[in-house]
């Protein structure tokens, strides 16, 4: 009986903490999206769905959504492909395996600010590292921040740099849980390296990849720091995404209601995509299938 109380106590504690730091702000932000206010001090004015109508009719909103999706998908694809490849290499037996495995996770420890500053220092068109390298060959420097594609690519590359180690770590753990006998059975069955990868490795990584892609998807879709630090949504809103748009509206354009509406729409979209994703790729069944 005492244990029951302990469990209930812990449960209530958890709910209270979650409610205070997640549920409260979430509900407050949803509430705010039905009002108009220039700051948190001003008394908000009820406008109903006005903010939503305004936001949804702006081309910038749809552009930001498309940018966010483009950046998220490119980053996830690269992170997963690179992560799986690196994990496959690290999973082999070689001298110094432990050291290399440990080193491979180092970028993950790097604070995002540091990673972004280093990137800027390398890429800066006026005094960057690449500029001097190019100059020594007699070439000029390309302005990466002035072009939509290269600005997006930079954001994607930095995200891949920082977050691929996370994928590597998860996939490496997944690889080690695939029984060696399955590979032996496939070899006896006549499968070569590619067929072994397709019929043994990938199915064995299924549940890990489902979770990794889900988590990376959520984090990339909500990514703010890398974009803000590198491009602030520029050039000309070409790297603007829903999180930066919400921030811009709320804190730079003093339109708290509009920002809250963007955030709420973004939250609802992400939640529905996650629900559909989990319906199509159920984590439980993947587990049983192993």
């Amino acid at each position: 009986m005492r244990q029951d109380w302990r469990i209930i106590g812990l449960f209530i504690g958890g709910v209270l903490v979650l409610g205070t730091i997640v549920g409260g702000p979430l509900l407050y932000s949803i509430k705010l999206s039905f009002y108009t206010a220039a700051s948190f001090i001003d008394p908000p004015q009820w406008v109903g769905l006005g903010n939503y109508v305004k936001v949804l009719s702006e081309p910038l909103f749809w552009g930001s959504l498309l940018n966010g999706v483009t950046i998220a998908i490119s980053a996830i694809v690269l992170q997963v492909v690179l992560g799986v490849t690196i994990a496959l290499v690290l999973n082999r037996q070689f001298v110094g395996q432990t050291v290399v495995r440990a080193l491979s996770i180092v970028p993950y420890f790097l604070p995002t600010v540091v990673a972004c500053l280093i990137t800027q220092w390398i890429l800066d068109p006026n005094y960057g590292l690449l500029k001097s390298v190019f100059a020594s060959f007699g070439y000029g420097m390309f302005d990466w921040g002035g072009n939509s594609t290269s600005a997006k690519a930079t954001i994607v590359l930095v995200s891949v740099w920082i977050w691929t180690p996370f994928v590597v770590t998860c996939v490496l753990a997944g690889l080690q849980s695939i029984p060696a006998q399955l590979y032996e059975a496939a070899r006896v069955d006549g499968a070569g390296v590619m067929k072994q990868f397709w019929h043994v490795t990938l199915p064995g990584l299924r549940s890990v990849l489902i979770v990794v892609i889900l988590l990376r998807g959520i984090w990339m879709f909500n990514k703010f720091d890398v974009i803000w630090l590198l491009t602030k949504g520029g050039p000309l809103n070409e790297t603007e995404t829903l999180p930066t748009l919400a921030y811009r509206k709320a804190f730079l354009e003093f339109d708290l209601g509009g920002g809250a509406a963007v955030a709420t729409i973004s939250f609802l979209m992400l939640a529905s995509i996650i629900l559909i994703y989990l319906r199509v790729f159920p984590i439980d069944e993947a587990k049983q299938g192993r």
Partner: protein
Amino acid sequence: MDIADGELVVFVGPSGCGKSTTLRMLAGLDDVTFGKILIDGRDVTALPPKDRNIAMVFQNYALYPQKTVFENMAFGLRVRRTPQQEIDRRVRSAASSLGLEALLERKPRQLSGGQMQRVALGRALVRDPDVFLLDEPLSNLDAKLRVRTREEIATLHARLGATMIFVTHDQVEAMTLGDRIVIMRDGFIQQAGSPLDLYDRPANAFVATFIGSPEMNLIDGGLMRDGGALVMRSGGLSVNLPAQSFSEAERDVTLGIRPEHIERAETSTAFELVVGLVEQIGAQTYVLGKIDGNKIRAVFARDDALRAGDRIFVNLSQEKLHLFSRESGKTLRRTSTKGENGNGRELHGQAQLRRAEFQG
């Protein structure tokens, strides 16, 4: 060693003896340090598993978890680009001979251990290989299922006439299944021969104790002539031996007698066995006791009255006695064995197969 076409050979030995390594070398999963493997006269030593035309059944079944039973069995054929019709025919025929027809659309996680083992067998069967390699295929099954699957494998072998190599650590499995048994220890073949050959004429003390359950009693002692008779003495115990049967080259010997070859006797001219522990297993009564201070295990016909502390008389039937050199462990029996490797032909080095020729 040579294995004939259609033979079922069992590699048996304690864990770490090299039996699985040998099988894996035959499959091409482990490298051969030296020596050759020939299948049907073809040197396959350097070939990858897929080019050896072998099929293997693994201890943990190694079924592809995401594939259905049908696809598990069909995979090897698909990789070899067998026409779909042929795949269908072979899988269904194997499924029907293993009673798997109703399970073809299931995934491995929906099967019991016994069913998974049958699918693993089926996967080997559809390939129609030159040699079946079975690596402890029964050890993950419960006792009842193990016996049934063992019978199924024996039936399958009889029906297909396929060449099979079966690895196990269980001597009962080896005895019941094998046309021929190869007993291994520390990477060396101790003896190879028919099950009864190994039971009746073990080449050394290791084989003698490994085959048979409960295991053979071994008593260390000295060999000497007493008048005209050949006698083994150990403490107060003195056992007469048939003089022509054993070499007298060594003095320090080990006498062996199987528990089931110790017979109850009425007369006091026999040996006196002091009963220490009685185990009733139904049809028989197992007794652990002492004869002149030597620990002895005996198996008698059921005797409900036997109690610890009882003193009973027993005979050690002379023609069933074994004698081994205490130094080398080798048998001192004169007309050694009928088996080809009577003296425990040695393989060189840990788990290195000198030459395995299969005429498939």
